């Protein structure tokens, strides 16, 4: 018996050493690169929810190891407790939501208690307070010289079903703590930002006889009809300059991808396959696109130059890859990895390049769909479905940090940021 136990122990040690080395080293390396920080709330009425938002911002950046304790202490004092002196930085703040949202922030060096950053923030709309937290943390991050995380300041745009043939389109912050219905009434789908500054977006309205693409200015409320098509109509991607769109249209009952010139209103048919071609996304300096097609008998990811008919298969993995997004030459796609006709299926996300090389999984369990890159390509947003409901997930591609925020209410139809 003793020999058997000794054998098991030796086997465990061998396995741990042979297979555990890389993971351990990787974690240590990541930990060394992150700054240890603590948040100290000096508000008259401390707010746990606001503290959680600040914590999320620090975590999703991938640049900090944030203390989970909601410390509370005097905002103006530079004196730090022995515990806080062990941190590299201490972020002191006061937050109030009376007469608008106000946030005062100071950053002290943990070892010396000296102030290295100070800034005040205010918004007239108290419900937009999450954006104050995001702005403060992204400013602190920049001041410390870490890679930019300003994507946390952006609006999320998503549509969700309410009842049969009815939906609404909402604006939200990335944590979903701020949400506002911006279009309600009827069936309105596939919202897509029209410009980098997030002043207007495209969406498909089903109010008329055929689907119609509109552009809505979120500040003035002005709405402009862009184009209408029998069958289906989706704005899948917008060029960086905003003057070209990739649309899935079906003017002859056939779903194909068209490039639409916003200035002239002209459109060019890119795909001509007699099956399903959808989900066009610009890649390779917007000279090509990747898209989803069933031309091999199942949904998969392909690439085509915008100036020729030559089509290249990008993904050689999986038998049902029915959604993708692109940023520069990076591609993220969802792959169905179980074959239950009904009920739960495993969908995982994979990262690859427009040439199909360097493929790696981003998720390994659950139902993970609707992948979307952040504008800078550093983070992938997605929807995760589980038994308890749906969540909005984020994966930082460099730090491998991930976060999930629960989505309350109805099923998400489409999402953009």
């Amino acid at each position, binding site marked *: 018996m003793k020999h058997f136990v000794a054998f098991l122990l030796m086997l465990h040690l061998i396995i741990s050493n042979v297979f555990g080395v890389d993971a351990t080293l990787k974690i240590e390396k990541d930990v060394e690169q992150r700054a240890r920080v603590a948040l100290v709330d000096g508000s008259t009425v401390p707010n746990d929810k606001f503290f959680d938002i600040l914590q999320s911002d620090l975590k999703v950046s991938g640049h900090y190891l944030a203390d989970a304790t909601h410390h509370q202490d005097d905002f103006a004092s530079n004196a730090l407790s022995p515990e806080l002196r062990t941190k590299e930085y201490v972020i002191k703040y006061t937050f109030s939501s009376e007469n608008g949202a106000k946030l005062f922030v100071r950053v002290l060096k943990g070892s010396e208690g000296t102030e290295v950053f100070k800034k005040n923030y205010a918004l007239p709309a108290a419900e937009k307070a999450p954006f104050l937290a995001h702005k403060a943390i992204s400013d602190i991050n920049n001041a410390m010289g870490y890679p930019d995380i300003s994507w946390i300041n952006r609006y999320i745009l998503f549509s969700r*079903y309410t009842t*049969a*043939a009815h*939906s609404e389109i909402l604006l939200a912050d990335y944590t979903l703590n701020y949400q506002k219905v911006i279009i309600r009434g009827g*069936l309105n*789908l*596939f919202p897509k930002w029209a410009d980098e500054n997030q002043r207007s977006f495209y969406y498909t309205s*089903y109010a008329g*006889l*055929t*689907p119609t693409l509109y552009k809505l200015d979120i500040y003035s409320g002005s709405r402009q009809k862009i184009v209408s098509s*029998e*069958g*289906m109509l*989706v704005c*899948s991607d917008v060029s960086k300059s905003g003057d070209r769109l990739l649309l*899935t249209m*079906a003017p002859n*009952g*056939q*779903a194909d991808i068209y490039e639409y010139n916003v200035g002239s209103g002209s459109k060019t048919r890119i795909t001509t396959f007699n099956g*399903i*071609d*959808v*989900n066009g996304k610009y890649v390779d300096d917007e000279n090509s696109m990747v898209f*989803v097609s069933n031309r091999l008998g199942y*949904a998969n990811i392909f690439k085509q130059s915008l100036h020729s008919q030559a089509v290249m298969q990008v993904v050689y993995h999986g038998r049902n890859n*029915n*959604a993708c997004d692109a940023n520069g030459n990076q591609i993220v796609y*969802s792959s169905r990895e179980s074959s239950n*006709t*009904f*009920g739960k*299926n495993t969908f995982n996300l994979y990262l690859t390049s427009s040439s199909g090389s360097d493929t790696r999984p981003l998720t390994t369990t659950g139902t993970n*769909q*609707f992948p979307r890159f952040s504008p800078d390509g550093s983070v992938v947003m997605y929807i995760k479905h589980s038994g308890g409901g749906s969540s909005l997930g984020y994966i930082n591609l460099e730090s491998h940090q991930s976060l999930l925020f629960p989505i309350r209410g109805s*099923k998400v*139809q*489409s999402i953009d940021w």
Partner: protein
Amino acid sequence: MQKLMISAVAASLLALTGCSQTAPDMAGKNNVSDANQFGDTVSIDENKYGNEAGAGSRFNSSSDGFQSIYFGFGDYGISGGMESRINSNAGVANNAGGSQVKIEGNCDEFGTDEYNYALGLKRAKAVKDAIAAQGVNTDKMVIVSFGESNPVCHEPTDECYERNRRVDLRLAR
């Protein structure tokens, strides 16, 4: 070592003795001594395999005298069982005077993103082509895909999913 060898021989003898017993002939020539044969057996619902018409053919969510066309999972071909409905719909369309016929493609909840809308579109197009083949003017018909957005049934059952994989027809107003 010697003990081990004796044990092995004894075990082999016991096993051989067991095999030499005559099995009761309960199923003709089949040897029923295999315990696996009496393990748990399945119980299937024949309906889950569908039939030519499909379980959904008992239902109709079209209007103005039209009848809905139902489809298999991930499929956009019209089954033989739906042909009588196609013929009936062609007759209704031809008697519709100057009104346009709206053909709406729908899917179950298992697809996502644009691809599911394209699948609904293929179904609507298949119905349009089938009706056109019966002599209905294509200019009278307009197709629209609703993807998974317009379910008529919300229960998590196979029959319910099948009712949602459909094409509805109605007069455009």
